[in-house]
């Protein structure tokens, strides 16, 4: 068999974005040996692209905010599909996690009183997004990176993990390869934390980088864990649309938080149309542009503009406007923030200003941006225990975007940056506990051999398709059939095409050798993407209603019966099995918080 190298850690953390780094801090604080695997260089993970802020009810803005309101907003925004215990933990602990970042050295923008400044965002009742201009993710990842590095972890940069190794006692390690030279490494660990992020790359237009191929969720599935809410993929309302080179790149929600106005191609401010105001938000938003304008300077006595509805609602409204023929010249809508004045825009949205100026030749202080929804985030993911982040596999934990449950059917902006802090820490602490009870177990040579064979096969084939060809076809069918608007017809066609792609992906060929070879790397990534695409499509087919991010044109209503179940996906043999799992009943103290909101 192919020779391989072995390394050992007490705890192995796969993924070095915010969740992985926060988990590492907890592991290192406990004095354990911690290995962190990162597909990219350290500090380049997707967290770096988060812009608007980290939501936590610090209450610094003279508004009656507290964790209960954050709890309620998150559940209402998630269309009631969230795991209520996860949301409770999250809304509570988000506050301490943000304050802790300041102790680590983060430098947030300040209020006049010198406290952390908070901005409004979609679906949040009060100003709640703790931010640094529009580069909050960079601040967060650099802060966590510096903190973790100062505590002495082993960081394996540019390694890719492709399989979890298991025994009858649960997870025992993983197989990885080094991207720079292609050598194989077996990592033994007493506990493993998955913090591998999402899987937006299977769509054509996405704000996600090459890394978002869903490796962690697919590997967990293959190791025996189940996934939850896989049909729930977030389409961010505002991606760049023009020029084509920039299509899909994120335009932060902070633009709307700072007063940005959406207009269709005819100049109409369409978010005020009654058809776009969902029942559960009625009466909570400004009912005229005049009130929305007053809100900019007086938030106590005026309601928020409807541009600040949650992302699922705004994305759908934009999609419908364009479909009805009211789009802009390139088939999007306009997002206009010019009324805030050049100085204000450059101070609060500096990276948006720079992004549009340098990449799109658009001066956002003087002209509107052209935007269209882009695939942004995956609410679904690995099914975990709310308190411990434990998956169905002993010793295996998951946190952040790769885990599911917290965000339900739609994530509120700003909740992901605090998600990764709250549950990154909890996953780290759980891994510490597991590592104290578990030991390094022998690994299965046959599991290693099977993975190595799969990994190296494309290099040995001279005939066969290039991964880029199949990846492109995958993006096309997912974009066309599993995007904002879904139907039985489209999803079924997508599923049969997926079967075809899966077969063809068994015969991939990659030219060249094992040294830093992106074509070869993409071949393995593609198998993860195909697996998760199927999980999305099968779940979307099964949920015969519209809720949150899932909009079925053949089942346009929200069905209360469907509000009582989550869908889970498990792997049986080589088949994905979708199961309806009842939501746990909400305990009285949380129900009381929900009822307060109805007053």
């Amino acid at each position, binding site marked *: 068999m192919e020779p391989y190298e072995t390394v050992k850690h007490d705890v192995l953390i796969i993924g070095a974005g915010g969740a992985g780094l926060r988990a590492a801090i907890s592991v290192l604080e406990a004095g354990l040996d911690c290995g962190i695997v990162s597909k*990219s*260089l*350290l*500090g*380049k*993970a*997707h967290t*770096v*692209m988060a812009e608007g802020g980290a939501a936590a009810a610090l209450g610094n803005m003279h508004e009656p905010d507290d964790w209960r309101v954050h709890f309620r907003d998150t559940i209402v925004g998630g269309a009631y599909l969230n795991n209520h215990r996860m949301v409770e933990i999250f809304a509570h602990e988000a506050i301490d996690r943000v*304050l802790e970042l*300041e*102790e*680590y*050295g983060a*430098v947030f*923008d*300040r209020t006049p*009183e*010198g*406290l*952390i*400044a908070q901005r409004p965002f979609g679906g949040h009742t009060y100003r709640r997004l703790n931010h*640094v*201009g529009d*580069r909050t993710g*960079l*601040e967060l990842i*650099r802060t966590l990176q*510096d*903190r973790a*590095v*100062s505590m002495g972890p082993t*960081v394996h*940069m540019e390694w890719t993990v492709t399989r979890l190794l298991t025994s009858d006692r649960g997870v025992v390690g993983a197989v990885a390869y080094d991207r*720079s030279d292609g050598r194989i490494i077996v990592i033994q660990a007493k506990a493993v934390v998955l913090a591998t992020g999402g899987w937006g790359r299977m769509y054509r237009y996405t704000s996600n*980088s*090459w890394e978002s191929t869903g490796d962690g969720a697919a590997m967990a599935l293959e190791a025996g864990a189940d996934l939850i809410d896989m049909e729930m993929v977030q389409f961010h309302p505002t991606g760049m649309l*023009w*020029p*084509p*080179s*920039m299509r899909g*790149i*994120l335009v932060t929600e902070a633009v709307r938080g700072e007063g940005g106005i959406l207009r269709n191609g005819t100049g109409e401010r369409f978010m005020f149309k009654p058809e776009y105001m969902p029942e559960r938000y009625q009466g909570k938003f400004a009912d005229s542009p005049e009130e929305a304008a007053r809100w900019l300077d007086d938030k106590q006595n005026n309601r928020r503009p409807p541009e600040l509805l949650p992302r699922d609602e705004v994305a759908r409204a934009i999609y419908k406007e364009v479909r009805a023929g009211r789009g802009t010249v390139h088939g999007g809508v306009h997002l206009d923030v010019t009324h805030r004045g050049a100085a204000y825009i450059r101070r609060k949205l500096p990276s948006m200003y*720079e*992004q549009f100026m*340098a*990449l*799109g030749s658009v001066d956002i202080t003087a002209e509107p941006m052209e935007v269209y929804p882009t695939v942004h985030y995956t609410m679904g993911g690995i099914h975990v225990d709310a308190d411990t982040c434990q998956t169905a596999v002993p010793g295996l934990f998951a946190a952040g975007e790769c885990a599911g449950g917290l965000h339900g059917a739609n994530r509120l902006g700003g909740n992901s940056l605090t998600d990764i802090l709250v549950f990154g820490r909890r996953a780290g602490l759980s891994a510490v506990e597991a590592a104290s009870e578990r030991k390094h177990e022998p690994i299965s040579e046959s599991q290693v051999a099977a993975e190595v064979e799969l990994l190296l096969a494309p290099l040995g084939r001279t005939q066969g398709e290039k*991964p*880029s060809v199949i990846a492109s076809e995958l993006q096309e069918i997912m974009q066309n059939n599993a995007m904002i608007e879904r139907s039985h017809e489209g999803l079924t066609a997508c599923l049969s095409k997926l079967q075809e792609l899966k077969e063809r992906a068994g015969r991939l060929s990659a*030219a*060249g050798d094992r*040294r*830093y*070879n*992106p*074509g*070869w790397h*993409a071949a393995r990534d593609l198998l993860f993407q195909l697996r998760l695409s199927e999980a999305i499509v099968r779940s979307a087919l099964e949920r015969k209603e519209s809720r949150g991010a899932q909009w079925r044109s053949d089942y346009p209503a929200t069905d209360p019966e469907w509000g009582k179940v989550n869908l889970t996906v498990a792997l049986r043999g080589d088949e994905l099995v979708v199961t309806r799992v009842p939501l746990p009943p909400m305990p009285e103290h949380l129900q009381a918080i929900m009822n307060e909101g109805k007053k």
Partner: protein
Amino acid sequence: MRDTIRLRVFRGDASGGEEREYEVKTFPGMVVLDAIHQIQGEQDGTLACRWNCKAAKCGSCSAEINGLPRLMCKSRVEEFYDAAGVIRVHPIKTFPLIKDLVTDVSWNYKVAESIPPLRIREGTPRPLRMDQSDVERAQEFRKCIECFLCQTVCHVLRDHNRTDAYFGPRYMVKIAALDMHPLDSVERRSFLRRSAGVGYCNITKCCQEVCPEHIHITDNAIIPLKERVADEFYDPIRMLVRRLSGRK
């Protein structure tokens, strides 16, 4: 814009290499990274480069385009091709080559590990309070996306190969961010002089010119740090006190 351009991309590794030419189709707004992706997808999947965000926020895709250190994702092709439609793309030069456009930048991460982290002054009340005007200096430095373009143009590192003596502009910026944090209590002047080698910078400001985040590296970070070190170690009165007290 031309319909097609010719990219001459360096292909090779530490043992040597050469430019190879690829013809690529253009489209509106195209950046050099798009052209590299087109080559990878349609012509040669073995071409190695780093990238992540494609929006100038992660600092992964640094390269030398027509000899200029740039982020490939922020470099529009029409600003770079010549009369014959040619653009030359090479790896950044200061760090050892791994393959094609990918270099070994691990030295930078080792340097980062050695920098004394923030320690908030004891007794500071919670929640922490800081004025916006006081945090802005540190915030400028914290915009750094670690693309290492400043490191690759720094004469001390690039021409004199003194990675043993000087941390380079990226880490001057990092130390400045810590030093100018309003609540930090760590004394880094001796570290700056001895380990970080701030004295090696001769203020040519090349780093400042290439920074994609427009950080005033030399003016706002390095010069003030040099002044602090000078105050501590080269102030005549302090020098006299040190000599009399026997302190170094």
